């Protein structure tokens, strides 16, 4: 009996080794996702959830969207996508520049390590604290406005510094640039330095080398970083809430509001649509590069 059990274990060693992770993923990832999908088809009233199979939640989400004027859902998505695009452009530009500096301009390995650690240091504090610390800086009576006024650049406090799209984008860029820097840096470090010399030998200028050699070879890092940023920004409601002064529409915010009114089926439907959109974006990005190979 014992003999037979041992024999079975040996035959299925690989399965047993994979089992713990599979179990964790099934319990905490697949199951909640399925639950969300199922609940998105339920009906609800002001005080109860009604198990059902109905398209009501999806229908209501896109109500009026057929007309030429933008419906609320489309406007919300557009606003979220706009924020996402702005954050993506800025994090990519800044992240790539920092990674390029670390990889190609810093001469010694020790200096590179020190600077890299310096980049990650802010991550020792929480997201929320780093976000909130912008408020005393950007507020009506904040440091930035005081400085601008005392320098005589403006006479009235600048209103758009805080609780605006500007402050939301600023906070996102601050929070997420490192998510681009790290994978891009990793890609850049793998580039054979002789390729840059070969480009120079072929008459390429600095910019031509950057565009025709460095950027294409950094593509895997750029795509991975972009996925991080897009996923984080598309689903966010905290940063947009705090930095936008609860004034800016985003899909994450809509879901949060519906949840607070206990409209779980509507929130679930909203979540499923968002999930589909983000997955679509990721698939489109991965078409550009074979990520599996690069990892």
């Amino acid at each position: 009996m014992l003999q037979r059990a041992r024999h079975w274990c040996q035959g299925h060693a690989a399965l047993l080794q994979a089992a713990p992770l599979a179990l964790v993923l099934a319990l905490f990832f697949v199951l909640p996702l399925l639950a969300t999908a199922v609940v998105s088809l339920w009906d609800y009233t002001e005080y109860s959830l009604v198990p059902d199979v109905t398209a009501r939640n999806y229908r209501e989400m896109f109500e009026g969207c057929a007309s030429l004027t933008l419906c609320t859902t489309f406007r919300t998505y557009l606003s979220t996508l706009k924020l996402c695009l702005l954050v993506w452009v800025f994090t990519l530009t800044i992240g790539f520049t920092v990674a390029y500096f670390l990889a190609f301009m810093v001469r010694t390995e020790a200096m590179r390590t020190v600077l890299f650690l310096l980049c990650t240091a802010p991550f020792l504090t929480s997201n929320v604290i780093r976000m909130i610390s912008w408020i005393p800086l950007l507020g009506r009576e904040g440091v930035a406005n005081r400085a601008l006024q005392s320098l005589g650049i403006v006479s009235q406090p600048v209103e758009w510094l805080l609780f605006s799209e500007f402050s939301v984008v600023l906070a996102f860029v601050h929070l997420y640039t490192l998510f681009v820097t790290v994978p891009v840096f990793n890609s850049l470090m793998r580039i054979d330095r002789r390729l840059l010399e070969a480009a120079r030998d072929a008459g390429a200028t600095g910019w031509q080398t950057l565009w025709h050699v460095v950027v294409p070879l950094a593509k895997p890092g750029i795509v991975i970083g972009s996925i991080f940023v897009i996923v984080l920004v598309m689903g966010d409601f905290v940063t947009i809430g705090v930095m936008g002064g609860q004034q800016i529409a985003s899909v994450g915010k809509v879901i949060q509001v519906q949840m607070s009114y206990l409209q779980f089926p509507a929130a679930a439907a909203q979540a499923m649509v968002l999930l589909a959109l983000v997955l679509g974006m990721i698939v489109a990005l991965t078409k550009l590069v074979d990520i599996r190979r690069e990892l």
Partner: protein
Amino acid sequence: MQQETLRLDKLATPLPRGAIEFVGVSKRFGATTAVSALDLRIPAGTYCCLLGPSGCGKTTTLRMLAGHEQASDGDILLDNTNVTGLPPARRGTAMMFQSYALFPHLSCLDNVAFSLRMQGMPKPERHARAAEMLALVEMDSYAARLPTQLSGGQQQRVALARALVTNPAALLLDEPLSALDPFLRGRVRAELKRFQQRLGISFVHVTHSQDEALALADWVVLMKDGAIEQQGTAMQLFDNPRTAFVARFLGGHNVLALPQGQVAVRTDRTRLAEGAGYPETNARAAYTATLRALEYTGTGFSLALADATGEELGVLLDEAALAAHPLTPGDQVALTWDPADERPLDPA
């Protein structure tokens, strides 16, 4: 192979190009001097090998000629134009890098067309020209492949095509054969020589392998500690090594300490003195050495010996001679040679 020769033959034999001149060229990195006051003239259309052990300054010399390193002092001329301050692409040189440095994200065709693209040549034109170059190196059927899908020898040909596409007067090769396996090395070596002769341009080839230099070069420049130790044709160098360093580095020589000074005698001209009597009347008195090892080479035996000072010596022996006088490691033997084969060496 047959076909490639034919295609190469279609090229008209051009006027030789690529006369290279170094005038008092030095290169210092901080406190260390990599190359000191180098004077060198390479006539147009020459296959020149820069030979030497690692750290002798041969690669730095090549990189200064290519423009990837700025000379600290002196002038570099190519076809009577001073190119010392010019960027790499405006010198009329092209470099083939060690392990080729092909762009991994570009197809063979785009790799070859790269420099034309940088010049802003329109796509159809540059692709046509690149395809021509690929055909020249017999790689046209691989135009769409990525470099990682090619073997070492094929990568080498694409790298050659990429370097030649700008029609350089001098092709600079940094250890071009070191990435290849020994079998391929011989074949590629012959190919390089054929290209050089057909194109009529100068090839400057950096290597630490004396075989490569002797086999390929019209002109061998042997460097040591940032300076030229000796230069000449391969035959001149091998027949008349100037110093013990040259004799030892080229190999095939015994450096012998005689009362009148150090001399070099080629190993194939050194023999074992048979018994007590010396058959040749003009042969030198015996030079004793201890047999260290005995290696069968196929055509005969190669004897590794050491003299009293520990200097390593070699003698080639045929099977019959060894059968007549069997030897085992540890035996004392006497060496002899014809005094006409002695080459006096400059004291170090």
